């Protein structure tokens, strides 16, 4: 598995907090580090940024490259239970356990200070990782996340492929559902969503459901609908500084 690591100047003299970025459909570990323009902000706040790939590659599983929204480049950050995916497609465990262990052992990071954010499918990944692991992440944020995969075409396709037909298994990886039973410590969630995002209009993202659930459960969210922005990395690049500052506030507290 490939992943990208950014070390700020501060890491030369001491351990820094770690910020994990999860990319969206069709991305690799390169997209974020080349296109998002996060460096200056991460450097300023002294954060180590880690960007893993979105799925295992070259597993030679039949059908892994058939569609761009399932299989290669579309791990959906779940631990698959169905064949032939269950051996290799375990992105949830990778992101929450395997990768942090590797990072903690090999890079100057403080294992106690970790946050997570992402875009689209990665936004979904960030939200579920944070909601399923209360207290593990100091903060979470997302760009145009898939908030309610159980109800959107992408989510239905992926979950049925990776998890089978038992919808109760699906809910364990759905942010809107997880929020409803979130017991844990205070989370402060920042979400940016482009108003002209095609996938929003197509009903793939469904942020309203998530917001309603959070309002109900009093989970603090600030959701910003940004006029004129779409789903692309230009949107991410515009607001990345706000997100990094949001995380720095908790990681450097």
């Amino acid at each position, binding site marked *: 598995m490939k992943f990208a690591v950014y070390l700020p100047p501060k890491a030369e003299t001491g351990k820094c907090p770690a910020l994990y970025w999860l990319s969206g459909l069709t991305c690799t570990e390169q997209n974020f580090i080349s296109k998002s323009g996060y460096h200056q902000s991460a450097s300023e706040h002294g954060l180590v940024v880690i960007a893993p790939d979105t799925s295992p590659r070259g597993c030679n599983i039949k059908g892994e490259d058939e569609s761009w929204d399932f299989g290669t480049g579309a791990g959906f950050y779940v631990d698959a239970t169905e064949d032939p995916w269950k051996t290799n497609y375990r992105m949830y465990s990778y992101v929450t356990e395997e990768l942090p262990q590797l990072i903690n052992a*090999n890079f*100057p990071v403080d294992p106690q200070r970790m946050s997570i954010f992402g875009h689209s499918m990665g936004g979904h990944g960030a939200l579920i990782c944070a909601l399923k692991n209360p207290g593990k992440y100091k903060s979470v944020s997302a760009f145009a996340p898939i908030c309610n995969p159980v109800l959107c075409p992408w989510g239905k396709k992926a979950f049925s492929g990776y998890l089978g037909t038992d919808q109760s298994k699906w809910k364990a990886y759905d942010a809107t559902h997880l929020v409803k039973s979130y017991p844990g410590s205070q989370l*402060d969630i920042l979400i940016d969503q482009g108003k002209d995002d095609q996938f929003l209009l197509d009903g793939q993202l469904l942020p309203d459901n998530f917001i309603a659930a959070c309002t109900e459960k009093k*989970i603090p969210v600030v*959701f*910003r*609908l940004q*006029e004129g922005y779409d789903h692309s990395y230009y949107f991410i690049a515009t607001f990345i500084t706000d997100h990094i500052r*949001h995380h720095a506030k908790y990681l450097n507290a």
Partner: protein
Amino acid sequence: MEEESGEELGLDRSTPKDFHFYHMDLYDSEDRLHLFPEENTRMRKVVQAEMANESRGAGDGKAQRDLQEEVDELVHLYGLEDDHELGDEFVDENIPRTGVSEYPPYMMKRRDPAREQRDWRLSGEAAEAEDLGFGGWGSAGQCQDLREAYRYTHGRASEEYECYVIPEEEDEEEAADVFCVTCKTPIRAFQKVFDEHKEHEVIPLNEALESAKDEIHKNMYKLEKQIIEMENFANHLEEVFITVEENFGKQEQNFESHYNEILETLAQKYEEKIQALGEKKKEKLEALYGQLVSCGENLDTCKELMETIEEMCHEEKVDFIKDAVAMADRLGKFLKTKTDVEISAQPEFEDQTLDFSDVEQLMGSINTIPAPSAPVINPQVPNSATGSSVRVCWSLYSDDTVESYQLSYRPVQDSSPGTDQAAPSPPIIKTKEIRSCEEAVLICWESGNLNPVDSYTVELTQAESPEASGVTDSASLYRSVVGIPTCESVVQLQPGRSYIIYVRALNMGGPSVRSEPATVHTIGSYFRLNKDTCHPWLTISEDGLTAVRSERRTPARELSPSDTHFTRCVAVMGNLIPVRGHHYWEVEVDEHLDYRVGVAFADVRKQEDLGANCLSWCMRHTFASSRHKYEFLHNRTTPDIRITVPPKKIGILLDYEHSKLSFFNVDLSQHLYTFSCQLHEFVHPCFSLEKPGCLKVHNGISMPKHVTFY
């Protein structure tokens, strides 16, 4: 490569097998320029040498740099550039690492970060060089290294240069290798043995080089010093030159004015004298003329009488007797009248001694240096006095030459007796209207006097603790501001302290006693709600921090527009200190309250809603149908923002420096929104209640850490 990166990271651990680093260098190794095709072979040579010399430490790195530099300079200086073989060696050595070389081979002056790994040039002999006290011009080590360089180029041992026997291999170059001191010329070693140089003293070329260099260097140093000296001197001369001109000007002026004065005075005297003489003459002449006229008259009368008498004598006896009697009468009368034959005016003019004393004085004063005009003492500057000293400044408003000043002083009692006027009464500080921030305080007061006062003085002392109000006069005065003409003042302070403030009034009779004190804490910003701006339906509490809108039954009559208080938006503004920097305050609201909180310029239109124009920015909350709606209004526009947990306490940060206004949920340390605003003037906090309810302002709060990120 693995070990290398491990070293760089400074970590000590075993590398997992399936773990490969690939550095994302700016230039991938494939992209590096290949200037020398034989690079690889040289690389191998380098590596081999590396292996051989692994014991070298990083300490040599510095030595190496100096070496490189020295050699390069020497090479350049002594025209060895043409000797490519010499230069090339150094070039190649650099290429494998950096790859990009734009300099001609002999001008390399790079600082190479990976020097530690290229120790091939320093071998055993160089270590010796270090022991010899390497580092600087003209040391033996330098010579050693130059010889090293030659060695590698020419493949000869350095010792060979020290013997004066003809080396057998001497057929390649014709280069001189020793120096004849007597003839002051470089010669070849074998020449020493022959002809003219037989008896002469010979030293190795390197030594000669060194000493020649030394000489030149010393002289160069002297030259440099001389340059500086002469330049300084030239500057000084220029200054003196200018001063001479100035002084000439002054002298010229001075003399001219004196001279002119004297001339004027003389001229004046001349005029006066001439005039006086003229008048005298006129007087005399007139008198004489008068006399002449009367004399003439007299003469005429005499003559007439004579003629009449003569005629009479020719008359008949009877007529003669009649006339003779009359004539005798007339004559008698006439001769009685006195004829003045005294000359009324003397021809001589008396000598008048003219008084030239003033001219004499003037002429005398030409030579004296006038006393300078009096200096003018500047008014006392604020902060120029302490309990035991005062700073006096004065100015001289003339071109007079002054040698020194003399300062004298005498203490004056506070309430000096013998003055006509009584000192004023102390002012009264308006404590409720004090506004402050972390860096300054705005104090205002009432005069406390019926009669006008000349000025006010503000005195501040630092309080050790916020409760120390019983401070005596002997407490160290932190600052005093004097000469304040109006009843308010802005004083700069240090953040995070407490101060006690007094004000005095001052007039001809002296200063008043101190006013009652007021306390200021420079933590956060303090302000109060301004009742003057308050919409009639709002009530402000006594402490100026709570605004209440009560249930009303009054018909919504049209309120006449006003410039001072709000008439449409049920709002009130606070009085923030007009000082830039940043200000932070908090507002406590009820979850179900409809409100607007933000800032506005003082001249915002009071007939409009807050946020409806470009002079105000606010966060607006409306609660309807169990739904909370949040807007961030400026010029009627708002971004689309949803907030899931309604804040009960809103933190507001006003940052003039970065032109930002930010809102926070204080309890969650959550950032809500930030406006970028053009703050060309000072703004004030503003609050409005759109439904009955109340909101409370909290002041004097230091910025929480999470706010500092914004």
